[in-house]
C-alpha cells in the first residue's frame, strides 16, 4: 500500500513540475503560440515595464485559473466564455487599482494596456483549455508557469529593445524598488538606435527572436533526422550481417 502511494506521488511530482515548466520554452505563450502579442509589442520598450506587465499577468492568470477551476461545474455551457470574461475583468480591475495606488509610474506607462489584459488571449485561452478541465492545484500551477513564461518572453524582448535603444538597462524608474540607476551603461551615443524603442523596433526584435528559435528548431530536427538515418543504416547492416551468418551456417550444414 505504502509503496503504491509512493509510486503515485513519484508519478505526480514530475507531472506537476512539467506542468509548471512547460510554459517557459516548450509551450511559451508568446514565442510558440503567438498569444498576447499586443502587450508583448507595446509595453516592452524597457525591461522594467515588461517585468511590470508580466507580474500583473501572473497575478491575473493565477487567480482567474483558480476561480475558474473552482466554479467550473456551476457554469452553464452556453455562457461559459462571458462568465470567464467577467471573472478575468474583475481581477484586471483589481490589479489596475492596486497598480495605480502603489506604482503610479508603471500605471502611467502601461496606460491602456492594463484594461486590455482582459482581452489577452493567453488568459482566456488558459481558462478555457486548462482550468475548465483540471483541478484547482494543477490549474494554479499551470497558470503560474504559463504567466512566468509570458513574463520571461516579455523580459527577453524588453532587455533587447532597451539595450539597443538606450545602451543601458535602467532600474527603479517604473517599479517602486526604492533605488534607481542603470546597469551596462554604455554612455556613448554612437550605438543607440532609437528606432528599437519605438513601434517598428518591437516588430523587428520579435521577428529576429522567432527566427533564431526557428533556426534552433530546424537544426534540432535536422540532427534528429541524421541520427535516425544512421540508426536505420546500422540496423540494415546488422540485419544483413545476420542474414549472411545464417546463409553461411546453412551452407555449412549442407556441406
Amino acid at each position, binding site marked *: 500500500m505504502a509503496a503504491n502511494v509512493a509510486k503515485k506521488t513519484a508519478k505526480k511530482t514530475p507531472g506537476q513540475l512539467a506542468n509548471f515548466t512547460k510554459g517557459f520554452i516548450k509551450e511559451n505563450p508568446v514565442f510558440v503560440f*503567438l*498569444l498576447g*502579442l*499586443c*502587450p508583448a*509589442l*507595446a509595453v516592452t520598450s524597457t525591461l522594467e515595464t515588461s517585468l511590470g506587465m508580466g507580474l500583473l499577468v501572473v497575478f491575473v492568470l493565477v487567480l482567474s485559473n483558480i476561480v475558474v477551476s473552482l466554479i467550473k461545474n456551476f457554469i452553464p455551457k452556453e455562457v461559459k*466564455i*462571458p462568465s470567464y*470574461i*467577467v471573472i478575468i*475583468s*474583475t481581477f*484586471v*480591475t483589481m490589479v*489596475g*487599482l492596486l497598480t495605480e495606488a502603489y506604482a503610479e509610474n508603471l500605471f502611467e506607462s502601461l*496606460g*491602456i494596456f492594463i*484594461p*486590455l489584459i*482582459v*482581452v*489577452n*488571449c493567453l488568459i*482566456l485561452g488558459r481558462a478555457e483549455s486548462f482550468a475548465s478541465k483540471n483541478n484547482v492545484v494543477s490549474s494554479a500551477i499551470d497558470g503560474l508557469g504559463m504567466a512566468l513564461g509570458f513574463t520571461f518572453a516579455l523580459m527577453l524582448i524588453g532587455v533587447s529593445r532597451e539595450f539597443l535603444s538606450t545602451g543601458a538597462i535602467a532600474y527603479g524608474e517604473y517599479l517602486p524598488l526604492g533605488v534607481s540607476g542603470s546597469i551596462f551603461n554604455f554612455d556613448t551615443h554612437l550605438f543607440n538606435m532609437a*528606432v528599437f524603442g*519605438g*513601434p*517598428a*523596433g*518591437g*516588430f*523587428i526584435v*520579435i*521577428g*529576429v527572436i*522567432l*527566427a*533564431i528559435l*526557428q*533556426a534552433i528548431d*530546424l537544426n534540432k530536427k535536422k540532427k534528429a533526422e541524421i541520427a535516425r538515418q544512421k540508426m536505420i543504416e546500422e540496423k540494415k547492416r546488422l540485419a544483413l550481417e545476420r542474414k549472411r551468418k545464417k546463409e553461411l551456417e546453412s551452407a555449412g550444414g549442407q556441406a
Partner: protein
Amino acid sequence: MTWTVFFTAIFSAMLINNVVLLRFLGVCPFLGVSKKTESALGMSMAVTFVMVVAAAVTYPLYYLVLKPLEIEYVQTIAFILIIASLVQLVEMFIKKFSKKLYKSLGIYLPLITTNCAILGIAVQNITDNYADLYGIGPGFFVAVVTAFGAALGFGLVMFSFSSIRERLDAATNLPESWRGVPVSLIVAGIMALAFLGLGGIV
C-alpha cells in the same frame, strides 16, 4: 466645432496613430487572419462594423450611466460585457437578415470579442476626454468618427500586409529559418517605419 475636427480625427486615427502598427492593438488578427487577402478583407469589414457600434454604445454608457453613478472603476467589466454581447447580437442579426454577409463575416465575428482594438478604442475614447474638449454631445460624434477612422486604418494595414504576405509565401529564396511568421514580423516592422513617416500630415 467644424468639419475639420472630423477629418482630423479620421486621418489621425487611420494613419498617424494607426491601431495595428503604431499602437499595437489588434496584432493577433493582424498576424492570424492575414494569410489570404480575402479573409483579411472579411475580418476588416467585421471589425469596422463592430468597432463603430461598440464606440457608439460604450461612450453614452460611460457618460450617462457610469459617471453619474460614480462607478467609473467598473468601466473595464462593463465595456467588455457590452462588446461581447454586441458581437453575439450582431452575429444573430446578420444570420437572420443576410445569409450572404453571414457567410463572409460569420467566422470572424467570434474572434472579435478578444480583439484588443475594439476594447482599446472604446477605452481610448474615454481617456482622450472628448467630452471635455467638445462637450458630451459633440464628443460622441468625434468618438464614433475616431472609431471609424481606426477601423479604416486597420483595414488598410490588413489589406496591404496580406497582399505582401501572399507574395512572401511564394518566395523560394528565403532562408528556411525566416519563413512564415518571423519574416512577416520584419515586414510589419518596416511598414511601421513607413507609417512613422506619416506623422507630419495633420
